[in-house]
């Protein structure tokens, strides 16, 4: 059995000082930044609608949609 199971849903953790444009440019470099930001936000509503509008380096940031939604 391999040592590390594949994630149920792919994610990254932000780097210190990250904001949406920086994250978008890094994880979705092939998309226009505004499109990438929109995409990422739609996959990470827990960061968009949290009571405090900061992204911390310990957060989970999904880089793909929910599996169920993707297969729907």
């Amino acid at each position, binding site marked *: 059995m391999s040592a590390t199971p594949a994630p149920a849903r792919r994610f990254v*953790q932000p780097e210190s000082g990250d904001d949406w444009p920086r994250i978008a440019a890094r994880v979705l470099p092939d998309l226009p930044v505004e499109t990438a930001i929109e995409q990422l936000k739609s996959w990470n509503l827990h960061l968009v609608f949290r009571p405090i509008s900061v992204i911390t380096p*310990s957060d989970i940031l999904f880089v793909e949609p929910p599996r169920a939604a993707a297969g729907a």
Partner: protein
Amino acid sequence: MLDLVIRNGLVCDGSGAPAYRGSVGIRDGRIVAMGEVDGLARQIVDAGGLVIAPGFIDPHTHYDAQLVWDGQAQPSLEHGVTTVVPGNCSLSLAPLRAEHRELLGATFRKIEEMPKNAFDAGLSWEWESFADYLAAIRPGLGVNVAPLVGHSLLRLWVMGLEARERAATDAEIAAMQALLGECLDAGAVGMSGSWVDIDHENRPVPARLAEPKELDALCATLGEKGGILQIVPEFWDADLLCARIDLLADLSRRHGIRTTFSPLFDSNAAPELVGIALDRIRLQTAHGATVVPQMQTRPIDLSFDLTAPMSTFATLPGWWAMTLLPQAEKLVLLRDPDRRRALAAEMDDFFMPIGLQIDFADAYVKRMGTPDGALMGRRIGDLAAERGCHIADVIIDIALADDLATSFGLDAIGHDDAAKIATMLADPLVGIGAGDGGAHVTNFATYGDTGYLFSRYVRGFGAMPLETAVRKLTHDVARLWGLDRRGLLRPGYAADIVLFDPERIDRGPEIPVEDLPADGFRYIRRASGIDRVFVNGALAYSRDGGYAAARAGTVAERVAA
């Protein structure tokens, strides 16, 4: 000669093995004989057929403050709990520099919902280091303490107020590792963290500002010393929780550490969540990781009032802000028709995002400063219908007429599908915990989760045999937290023992008491079915005599790595 022999009991030794009729012999605070115990003893206790079990271990408490003024951790001790684990969720009370006490105190009180008056009156603050905190509480201990050190505290000590602002440098991470090592050497059993908590100023707690490499480095220290990692994840969202389980599993494998998270609870808001999480844990366990979720036995009940900010109002900013106002301003606001309309409108749009299902119409009048028989126990939605007004008006009017002393209850707002929970609790992957003793003191009384396990799930649902329930509350916890020679009835093990009636053990109803410093009020539950509790061989509580004077508790030692 033995100090104590407990005879004629049903020995349930914590291993999960079948119980048997027998005795336990004790000398110098340790078990020295089991089964048929011969020889003289200074004291003989006839168990009268009751269960003789290891004392229960509560792995998730916030007794850090209470232990300063109450070393017996009442009422946990009377429920058979002989060891408590404080310092969960990134927050302990040490190591802490004097200049950060106000800040940490405000954070602790906000997250763990403790009244400021009691907190300020009860804390002597005779310490800065972790060792000095333990030295301060040790003389008064009537229970054993297996403390965690909070990651947020480590950051605050090393980085000062910048711990709230930024990631740590490599030098600061090294300093935190050294400090964590000191705390572990002084008696901590591990480190706690949080991925969700926000402080009194709505900022992430310092632990959340850590980059992955910082947490990884601290886990390396835990691995070297044999400490556990406890953490609070986004427990209400299946995808986020699975990602966190993966992170914990990686840390567990990489550093050879045991990890645990709390809470894992069931909710109709996300009925599939627990199953998904357990599947993920099962997979990671099969890949060599140790990730143990803590599940509470009780349904979630909450109380709220208008005197202080409470978690109930976390997503009601207008209500939250109102509770923070000085009394005079608050009364003006609550009598202002426009402001009341705004509060009512906010309640109409209420949403609780953490899996709890709250409908304020289902709240009821639970406690009043001046009890009104016509109101006590009445449902707010029914009163609103009778009065032809909004539920917010009912809550406010009742509170105003009672000088804001009214407490409102919300029962069974999550984790209340008992048949489903019975199956979950019996799952070998699931640990019993998340009790929160010492916290949320005016919001709910967690005490007696242990008795409730027996009454509801052993006797009621037959979800597990008596021996398994005892094992889950004792040996399973001691093994995971690495507690040296506790959690089993074995020669050489600490004589932490509870005698209980398996047909009667239970938790009592939630009752208000005013036993906090500065006459502070809290909710507690009394125990039933507990006959005697021994801590390190000394009688600590008995059904007939209540709490004993003995202070035989200690700082529980950790098994070396």
